[in-house]
């Protein structure tokens, strides 16, 4: 077996792609906060993402680099997860008759990582249909990002907001374990630094979830309209 096809090799692929996705998510979260500056600033930020690097680079260069990079990272992340999960099911074919609650350092991850991932994938599909392609969003003008956000989280569309928040909870648990797990896989810190990494992961997860959640909540409760 080639080293990169081993369990650890695949795990490194999952970790590296995961780190790239985390960096994207942090940037995305920070960018969303432009909504609090008002319609013009938010739309100018969105337009700026499209015109970034012009005239040296063609229109939407940054977006296409990001899109291709994200698709590659998501593909590697999911593919390695599927292969490793299948191997894990094969490695543990019989359940124990007697169940005890998990007691490991990252015990919450046992129940949240794989199912949370499914929730996140479903959310991303909806999110693209809603706020990227606008298939299910009443605001079709792609230059009006602000209007689309306001329409997406209109109080009448409260199930969308609830789903968004639910997906954020799944994302939060995913990050809380995923970030330190990626560091453990790539860098293999000692006990002291592992504990610190776990604390940093929790902090990043809380900040990311709060930063994302504040936007739909502000729209639903009328602070942004």
């Amino acid at each position, binding site marked *: 077996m080639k080293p990169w096809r081993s*369990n*650890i090799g695949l795990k*490194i692929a999952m970790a590296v792609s995961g780190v790239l996705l985390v960096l994207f998510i942090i940037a995305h979260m920070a960018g969303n906060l432009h909504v609090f500056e008002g319609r013009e600033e938010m739309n100018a930020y969105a337009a700026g993402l499209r015109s970034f690097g012009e005239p040296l680079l063609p229109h939407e260069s940054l977006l296409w680099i990001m899109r291709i990079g994200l698709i590659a990272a998501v593909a590697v992340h999911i593919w390695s997860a599927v292969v490793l999960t299948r191997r894990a099911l094969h490695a543990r074919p019989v359940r124990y008759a007697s169940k005890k609650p998990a007691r490991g350092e990252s*015990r919450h991850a046992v129940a949240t990582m794989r199912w949370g991932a499914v929730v996140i994938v479903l959310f991303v599909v909806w999110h693209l249909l809603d706020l990227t392609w606008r298939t299910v969003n009443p605001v079709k003008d792609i230059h009006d990002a602000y209007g689309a956000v306001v329409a997406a989280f209109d109080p009448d569309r409260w199930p969308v907001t609830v789903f968004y928040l639910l997906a954020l909870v799944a994302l939060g648990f995913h990050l809380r374990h995923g970030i330190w797990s990626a560091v453990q896989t790539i860098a293999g810190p000692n006990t002291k630094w592992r504990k610190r990494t776990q604390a940093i992961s929790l902090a990043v997860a809380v900040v990311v979830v709060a930063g994302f959640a504040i936007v739909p909540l502000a729209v639903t409760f009328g602070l942004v309209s």
Partner: protein
Amino acid sequence: MKLSLRIWRQPDAATKGEMVSYEIDEVSEDASFLEMLDVLNERLIAEGGDPVAFDHDCREGICGACSLVIDGQPHGPQAATTTCQLHMRKFRDGDQIDIEPWRAGAFPVVKDLVVDRSAFDQIIQAGGYISAPTGTAPDAHAVPIPKQDADAAFAAAACIGCGACVAACPNGSGMLFMGAKVAHLGLTPQGQPERATRVLGMVAAHDEAGFGGCTNVGECAAACPKEIGLDVIGQLNRDFRKAAARAA
């Protein structure tokens, strides 16, 4: 004390097993868990039945032969304790206790509570050793080792290879065992010549034997009777990454 036991009975590897209930009375609080099973077995033999097969050897907590998942926990409810060192005073009169074998694809059941752990031997054969000339043993202090490294290597060397880490892991992974060996041998000067081939060989043998991958949930370290921590898995990941990059 009086106990009701539910024990996994399976005549051989090919036959389907099941949990079978046994009532046992007058168990001494001072008996070890294995002695309690000895008492049960003596009764079963006297009744003309088939005694419960389980692994045991030194009964001093250092050989790694004993196993048993007791109430869903490898080596039972007491932390940092092997089954042979677990005593019945940790249980209460009237308790129901479930006793199962290690569950892992790489550890097939041989009979009842006995599993085949030779997959661990394959991992050791693939790199869990050092090469040293025999005949003239060097003085113990001939090669100085920093105290910090010696302590870390010694802590990893406490692994008795019982397989509780695999039994506890939701992915049936042997990474804690493998990490303990990689850390134990890789932190000393004697382990350096084979450091890269060791980790690549052991990882290949581990996956080949059907162990799963690590998801860093930490169930292994919580179950380890020798309290080996997740830092050895970090060491394993680091050694593997370096060795694989050099081999590529």
